[in-house]
């Protein structure tokens, strides 16, 4: 069991602002002993629109650092939209609009004054289907550092590529073929390559949009083990349609339905003693 962190664990005794609905009535369960650290990203009153259609309604959520936060919910509930708000990817969709504040390190990154490119160097993203560039493995990892001029010499770049691949648990498998096309790897390896690519720019946060849904169970297990390693030093937010995965991998879970955050809290508590009936229904499979 990992030791308690210095800060007092965030209590879930008081309902947070994101809790809605009728409490279940059962006594609150003692929270997990691995307490996440301070809040990394605070979402305040987020409303998102695609042209006239509203996709997110008044979402308020605090995402802790050095932990995995999972968004769960049925298809179309807005969890992917919310994820994409965090790194301003919705900016690329014509007609998309995000209102509200997203605070990170004291800055509102959703503000129009902030360059989305700056945001994306601090918040990386891994997509559902692995998308390595049609380049060599080395070039894939080197892309970010080169674009943002993070290293000044070839030796430094080589080192950065190696450390990123090590952190993504892929180095041993590809160290002899860094020049081969990234697309020649298996699905699971490609996804780890993409994670290594994201790690190469040393982001504070990594977003993952259903990263295992295109992978077989063995590859999925590898990725989940990797996520557990990464979260010790990085904030991770993962969208998943698999509740079992959320239960395995995350410390905090947020349940979404029809664009609203229904309930959020420690994963243990959400899955064993959810406060809201809707959460209970989803978890027991009554819908979704």
């Amino acid at each position, binding site marked *: 069991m990992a030791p308690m962190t210095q800060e007092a664990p965030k209590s879930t005794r008081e309902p947070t602002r994101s809790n809605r609905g009728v409490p279940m009535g059962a006594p609150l369960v003692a929270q997990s002993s691995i307490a996440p650290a301070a809040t990394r990203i605070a979402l305040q009153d987020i409303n998102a629109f695609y042209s006239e259609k509203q996709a997110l309604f008044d979402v308020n959520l605090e995402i802790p650092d050095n932990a995995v936060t999972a968004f769960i919910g049925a298809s179309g509930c807005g969890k992917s939209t919310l994820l994409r708000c965090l790194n301003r990817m919705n900016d690329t969709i014509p007609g998309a609009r995000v209102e509200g504040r997203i605070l990170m*390190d004291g*800055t509102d990154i959703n503000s129009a004054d902030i*360059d989305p490119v700056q945001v994306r160097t601090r918040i990386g993203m891994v997509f559902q289907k692995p998308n390595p560039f049609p380049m060599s493995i080395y070039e894939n990892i080197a892309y970010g550092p080169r674009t943002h001029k*993070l290293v000044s010499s070839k030796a430094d770049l080589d080192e950065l590529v190696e450390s990123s691949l090590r952190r993504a648990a892929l180095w041993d498998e590809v160290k002899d073929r860094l020049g081969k096309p990234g697309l020649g790897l298996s699905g699971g390896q490609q996804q780890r390559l993409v994670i290594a690519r994201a790690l190469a720019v040393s982001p504070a946060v990594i977003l993952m949009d259903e990263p295992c849904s295109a992978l077989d169970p063995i590859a999925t297990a590898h990725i989940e083990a990797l996520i557990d390693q990464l979260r010790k*030093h990085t904030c991770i937010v993962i969208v998943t349609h698999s509740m079992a995965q959320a239960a395995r991998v995350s410390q905090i879970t947020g349940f979404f339905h029809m664009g609203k955050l229904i309930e959020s809290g420690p994963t243990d508590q959400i899955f064993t003693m959810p406060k809201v009936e809707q959460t209970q229904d989803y978890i027991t499979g009554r819908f979704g």
Partner: protein
Amino acid sequence: MSTPTASRPMIGARRMHVGDTAFRISLHVAGAIVVIVLVSILAIMFLGGRLAFETFGLDFIWGSEWNPVTQVYGALPAITGTLVTALLALLIAWPIGFGIAFFLTETCPSKLRGPLGVAIELLAAVPSIVYGMWGFFVLAPFMSEYVQPWLTATFIWIPPVGDSFFWFTAPPIGVGMLTASLILAIMILPFIAATTRDVLLSTPQLLKDGAYAMGATRWEALTGVVIPAVRGSLFGAVFLGLGRALGETMAVVFVIGNAIRMPDSLMAPSATIASVVANSFPEAEPGTLDLAVLLGLGFILFVVSFGVLAIARLLLHQERMS
């Protein structure tokens, strides 16, 4: 382990980076150049041909006498030649092109499909001057020795139109509208085949499966279900072929006979706008009426081509949208 990027304070950077602005502007300029070129062509042709339109008025289009010596220029013979050769070419090329397309997409054994497709595209790549030479050295003598006498003899019974148009009754010179139409047909054939094949390939398999499930033969599925569904695009392919045929120069110039007068038979030596422009250009001095009429002809051809190509595009895209 936060390293440099994450701990750098976020500067409220400018929204639009300089690199992006230069990028966008240069691309927009490129697009603008395309539009400017087209507009300029129309404008230059019109302005250059103004003298011709002013001198003859509408008679420039309807006049049937083209005489550089007396400086009387009427474009009707050229226009007639252009339209007749293009339409005849289309009439010949379309069924064959369509047949090739159907063969390529439906009945051809898959091993042959690739090579045959390549062969058709190579046919399209042959430069038009080569077609012209082939027409002049091979087809024209063949026409004059075998085909034309046969046509004259076989169709002698068709009554002439008035006293000026005799269908197939003409001296078997070999060069003339019919030969030019044949060459044009061969030139636009691969084009129609390729475009039609693309249209047929883009029909959803679901449509054909539905017909086959009801026991239709391949031909019935094609005519009953596929063609009605893509009729617009098929017409689009036809118009595209027509657009090409209207403007073709080098292939025609060798075999049309270059007689700028109203044709008196389908085999008569004639002229098209393109052939007149190409042939009369060397003698046309800048600033004279001689050059102005060529530019005026060019303007007419461009307007007609523009219209045909615009219709073709509309038809082809309409289906793509739905």
